[in-house]
């Protein structure tokens, strides 16, 4: 699910370092225009990704608080008779299962081992690719380090191979397992094919163009000519960047940090939370069933004397 993120940096930086300035030196005007378009698409997709992600994040961040609906993996404070006077779950305790889940996909390992065999290498590959991009392409921009090309190439390739094996396994399993086929939209199979193409493209772009003597950033800046494979890889990555805000990567974020699953934050008298609750109870109730009188607010239901006595079924 995090594949999209890793592809960003690769194509971006290769294009960045092989800037149109260098291409201009090649005196190929049509190529310049084409590359400007590619660069435009690429950076445009980054901007789109950032803005669309922020819009979605803000939409959730400003959403009204909700009634509590948690569940628990183990004992909770409710086992204590004075639970309301105790400190509730600390952030660090909430984060522990999150980290385990992100790194090892623990729930899949326990509950769905068959899928985990492929999901795990896929995710490890993606994590390594993200780190690779940071190490090989981003860090040299910030600090003065020189990366050993051999290890850079090895790391990138191992990561890509792991992600590809995992991705291919998931695709095959999705297509052959009756349970996994259930309700899986056809278009998502194409997504996996596209993921694999992007991975293969990235592998090819790096391996064939940069070869075993992968250049440092400085070398790349000085004279590297942007080959078609990199352009294609950049365009594929742009597509991923545009898709990213609508993908599971944002859902993943909410999976762990949203105040839903393990929220466990009590409403204390006089707290900010209580003020929010009061504001929400002041909202009108606009549902239309017979037992809900028109024009009431939520708080009105707590003060009415003859309550909810109308029958329901009115079909």
């Amino acid at each position, binding site marked *: 699910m995090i594949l999209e993120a890793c592809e960003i940096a690769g194509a971006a930086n290769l294009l960045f370092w092989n800037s149109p300035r260098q291409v201009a030196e090649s005196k190929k005007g049509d190529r310049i225009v084409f590359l400007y378009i590619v660069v435009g698409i690429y950076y445009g997709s980054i901007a789109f990704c950032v803005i669309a992600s922020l819009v979605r994040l803000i939409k959730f961040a400003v959403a009204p608080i909700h009634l509590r609906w948690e569940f628990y993996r*183990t004992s909770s404070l409710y086992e204590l008779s004075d639970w309301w006077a105790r400190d509730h779950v600390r952030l660090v305790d909430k984060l522990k299962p999150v980290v385990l889940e992100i790194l090892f996909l623990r729930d899949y390992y326990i509950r769905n081992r068959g899928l985990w065999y492929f999901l795990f290498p896929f995710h490890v590959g993606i994590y390594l690719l993200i780190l690779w991009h940071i190490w090989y392409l981003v860090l040299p921009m910030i600090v003065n380090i020189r990366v050993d090309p051999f290890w850079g190439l090895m790391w990138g390739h191992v990561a890509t191979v792991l992600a590809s094996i995992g991705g291919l396994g998931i695709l095959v399993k999705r297509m052959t397992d009756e349970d996994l086929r259930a309700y899986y939209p056809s278009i998502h199979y194409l997504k996996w094919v596209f993921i694999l193409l992007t991975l293969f493209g990235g592998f090819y772009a790096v391996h064939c163009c940069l070869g075993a003597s992968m250049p440092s950033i400085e070398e790349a800046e000085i004279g590297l000519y942007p080959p078609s494979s990199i352009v294609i890889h950049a365009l594929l990555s742009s597509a991923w960047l545009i898709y990213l805000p609508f993908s599971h990567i944002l859902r993943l974020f909410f999976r762990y940090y949203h105040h839903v699953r393990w929220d466990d934050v009590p409403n204390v008298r006089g707290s900010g939370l209580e003020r929010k609750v009061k504001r929400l109870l002041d909202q009108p109730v606009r549902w239309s069933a017979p037992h809900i009188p028109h024009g009431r607010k939520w708080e009105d239901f707590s003060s009415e004397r003859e309550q909810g*006595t109308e029958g329901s079924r009115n079909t």
Partner: protein
Amino acid sequence: MKRKKIRVEDIGKGRNEQLLTITGEDVMPLPCAPENGDCQQPVRPLTEEQRSGYECSLDGVSAVGIPKPKSKEEEDRLVQRFLDGLRKLLSQKDNWTFWQQLVLALENCVRCQTCSEACPIYLSSGKQEIYRPTYRAEVLRRIIRKYMRKGGGVLAKVTGEDIELNWATIARLAELAYRCTMCRRCAQWCPLGSDNGLITRELRKLFSQEMGIAPREIHESGTVQQLKVGSSTGITPPALENIISFMEEEIEEKTGKKIKIPFDREGADILLLHNAGEFISWPESVEAFAILFDATDISWTLSSELVGYDAVNYGVWYDDVQLVRIATKHAQVAKELGVKRINVGECGHAHKALLVVADRILTGDLNIPRESALPLLEDLVCNGKIKLDPGRNDFPVTLHDPCNMVRLMGIVEPQRRILSRICPQFREMEPHGVDNYCCGGGSGFAIMSSMNFQDWKETVSGRMKLKQILEAFQDVIDPGIHKYVCAPCSNCKGQIRDLLNSRGAWENYGILYGGLVELMVNAMVDLEKPFIAWEWR
């Protein structure tokens, strides 16, 4: 012969055809003697009259009792009302109560089907597609995509996720919302936190709050009756007084103790809220609480105020408005009595509703501390506040974990520590704790028995629990050995009673059921006679 697999889009097809018929060959086998096995038709078909009057085209079962529309116009009107309700369900303003959880549950699913293997109904039914936890969620997703978004119709066809929204779809979906006990084991298992139990609840809410469709037992006879006469059981305050007098006499008869059960005692520390079903079906539970509290220095009271003597809040299963009405009423009763805290007795959903869900409903002086009875009971046992002799409970005991208390609240250990102290032959069911299986009576099923729904819940929704109980006692299955299923929840007790009864488990295997407090009182050293009467009830 292998059946044709039911697809998501089938829900809107074949208006008068039944999507599924459950047979004895379909359902999961049980570890018991063949004479108690399932017949070919474990769920009795509805009568012709019922079939012609009520919607049952999902699986031949009617839980909700939805009358069939009389005309096409009426059908169209209902479809429109469904869409109106769906818009409200997806609106932050109209559905602030559960909007975040709903949207996340709808969006998070990656269709890995991990949840399917967690669902006792899906497994017990022999993996019938319509009972798959993701089936109803997927139906809802497709409807939203097609009918709530611009260009949804075209997109649905392009992506192969088409669905028809017609009366057949809606009627089947309404019934399908009552084929899930909302035990939320699927949500616990989901690696992405998608909560199919919540989707079930929100569907029920749409039907109730917008279309006025809800099972009679939960709405008219449930929340409406509770708010009107005081209890979903129909017990009125005067009737309650009589019942309590009877209980006091029974306590004296059983134990020789003269105990006055306190009522409306202002300024008491604890307002004890029982599920009023206990007053009628399991008075020994209320009596046991009274005996235990009388034996200590606990300052407590019951209430005779309307709603104040019935802890149930069925709103938590289907309707936010009813949930708010009842939760605030509970808090008002406690406030007027001036008690320090509310203590909820052996009722799982009342725990979840009042302690957790209502936490963001009750504000100001209505936000009174609310606690479970289990930690208090643990304190009595584990800190030696009552003298107990485990030898008096020297029979096999297993524990059922009510989903609402355990998985959905994290109250896992107090009941175990109590049983470990007072029941030498305590054994766990597998799985247990937060991984437990629902009794099959959750989310209102325990009180729903109209038409042939009783058959369905005994055959399908409670099957996994029955299997667990039988397996827990496999080494002592001889009917001459008395065995006890401890279920510290009123609704669970009702469902387990029906399950055991359907298999003649008392006669055939010597298995009885009951609550936790009965075992505690049974072990009290100052009682001359055993408190538990080994007879079926």
